């Protein structure tokens, strides 16, 4: 079934009406959630064409998030690497410091239109939790964020930020006590409080319509970047590079370019300590398809179908699944998925900080690392566009610790 749909569906017309990207995606949820998901799908499909809603969203993206985010030519980095010219889409300059807010602003406006008064979210590193707590504060909505106990210990500053913003942060103590378990717990909350609660999922995973809706909210990244590149350089980039955890920043950049056949695309997964060590978070590179969190996609799982724990120095990439559209784009060959190790990401973190005065998030450092490797193999007249999805302030402790320092 995969093969026939691969050949017949244009890349920019998916998912189908039930949320499938070829054999991936779908609606694998308990019966109780089928109705609220149908309600959400109807509301989203209505409002995403509603001029009032879109105007409200545009104003928020401009005045609250600070869009459009700049396109920056990393001249010194390009020179140091020697090869293709590297451009950065500066999502790190958004309010709350990452691309996550593009989506939470959109979903929160939708929640309000749907009359929901309570927002829930899952978070790993805390960036999506902070972006959710931020918009909930602004709209005066109650906010509960589920976060694995292990992640709470690793990201205390973000826990404090969420609490300052008025959110309740609930520690999740089941399973591996990380992002995947936080997602399970948020689903359990939602199934219990579906009448008044809106679940803001932070990435392009989960049941339909989340992969579609989050992609569309994040596609503002690629739409802006495409126009900015054309205005600045008179041409499209030769290659796009973005890191992939769940995959929302990557799909946001890639999607508006999917039909531009000359544009190559690279999604960079967390190689952790190295793919052959098994300690990584690279389901597209080293996983197999399965069903988790409401959709079919590539997963890190053992031979009996149990989901495996992942490792990445970057908490935001530390997830055993990936958005179903990425699974589809991998199988079709439209996007090349590759990996970068913890050490390579750290080296890129230091390099960008030192050469350009931009401290990237460890997630985004994976994209920077691959972009520098790729640039070195290409001629000088080629252009590489990197999604700098977040800033590195949240990672000071992790980097310092890695360098043997205690802050």
């Amino acid at each position, binding site marked *: 079934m995969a093969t026939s749909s691969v050949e017949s569906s244009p890349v920019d017309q998916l998912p189908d009406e039930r949320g499938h990207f070829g054999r991936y995606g779908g*609606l694998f949820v308990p*019966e109780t959630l089928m109705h609220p998901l149908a309600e959400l799908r109807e509301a989203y499909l209505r409002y995403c064409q509603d001029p009032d809603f879109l105007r409200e969203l545009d104003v928020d993206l401009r005045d609250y998030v600070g869009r459009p985010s700049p396109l920056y030519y990393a001249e010194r980095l390009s020179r140091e690497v020697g090869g293709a010219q590297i451009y950065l889409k500066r999502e790190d300059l958004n309010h709350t410091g990452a691309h996550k807010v593009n989506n939470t602003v959109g979903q929160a406006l939708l929640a309000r239109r749907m009359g929901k008064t309570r927002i829930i979210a899952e978070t790993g590193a805390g960036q999506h939790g902070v972006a959710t707590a931020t918009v909930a504060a602004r709209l005066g909505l109650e906010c509960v964020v589920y976060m694995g106990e292990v992640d709470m210990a690793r990201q205390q500053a973000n826990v404090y930020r969420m609490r300052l913003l008025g959110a309740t942060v609930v520690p999740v103590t*089941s*399973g591996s006590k990380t992002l995947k378990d936080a997602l399970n717990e948020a689903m359990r909350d939602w199934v219990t409080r579906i*009448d008044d609660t809106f679940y803001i999922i932070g990435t392009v995973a989960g049941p339909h319509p989340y992969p579609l809706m989050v992609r569309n909210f994040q596609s503002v990244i690629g739409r802006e970047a495409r126009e900015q590149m054309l205005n600045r350089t008179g041409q499209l980039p030769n290659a796009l590079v973005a890191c992939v955890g769940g995959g929302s920043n990557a799909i946001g950049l890639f999607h508006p370019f999917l039909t531009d056949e000359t544009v190559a695309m690279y999604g960079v997964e967390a190689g952790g300590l190295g793919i052959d060590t098994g300690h990584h978070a690279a389901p597209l590179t080293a996983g197999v398809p399965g*069903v988790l969190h409401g959709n*079919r996609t590539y997963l890190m*799982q053992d031979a009996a*179908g149990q989901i495996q724990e992942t490792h990445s120095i970057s908490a935001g990439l530390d997830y055993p699944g990936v958005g179903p559209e990425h699974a589809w784009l991998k199988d079709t060959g439209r996007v090349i998925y590759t990996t970068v190790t913890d050490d390579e990401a750290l080296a890129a973190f230091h390099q960008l900080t030192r050469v350009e005065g931009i401290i990237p998030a460890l997630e985004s450092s994976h994209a920077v690392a691959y972009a520098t490797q790729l640039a070195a193999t290409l001629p000088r007249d080629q252009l590489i566009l990197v999604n700098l999805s977040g800033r590195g302030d949240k990672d000071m402790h992790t980097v310092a610790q890695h360098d043997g320092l205690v802050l």
Partner: protein
Amino acid sequence: MSRIATIFNQCRANNRTALIPFITAGDPNLIVSLQLMHRLVEAGADIIELGVPFSDPMADGPVIQRATERALAQGVRLIDVLALVKQFRAENQHTPVVLMGYLNPIECFGYAAFADAANQHGVDGVLIVDAPPEESHELVTTLRANNIDLVYLLAPTSDIARMEQINAVASGFVYYVSIKGVTGAAHLDVNEVAAQLAVIRQQIQLPLGVGFGIKDAATAAAVGQYADAVIVGSAIVSRIETLANDHAAMVNEVGAFVGELRGALG
């Protein structure tokens, strides 16, 4: 006729509400699980629901989550659960066994291989929490070809159209989730359940089981007035957890509790 259909026919003939206790396979271990299964039958279970451990049980409350973690800590896999059913079948050929779990271990096993193995090992039905009719066409077809029922869920949020949709594909029985919530959550509202079951019966001809939120004999008896079967999970699993260090006492306590439920159902 399948074992499940036979049991419901007998229950109907005897004006008896079927009792379906749930335990997680491999909690506290596979040997005791087998003892528990036999004891459940002695105490009055009509069908046994056997939980297949999965690392991410998103529809389960804390009690069954912990049971799952205890089973996974022993390395219990789907194939071990099938072997457990086969052992049970060596001594019991009449009590239906329904596996309850999540889709991924079955995807990983392969639908055809699983359906064949389940049939060979004496499984009668499968209930998959995260496989609604929209996503289970291939699975239900494969299972049916191997004489295995796929038991579908209905919830308080299911509308008439969904009831019709599920009626078109379900076999064995239909499982009504009595509350908006996870397993073992709040107490259910019997009047609400009764009203909902009346609506569902307009659309569904199969026997109706009710689960989620049945904690004691009184609730079981109240729901049993309206349902064809009552399903009790967390209340049993929490007794298994409490007596984790004394397996003989655990088996006795579970037997006594299920006997109490049976007595209340009449």
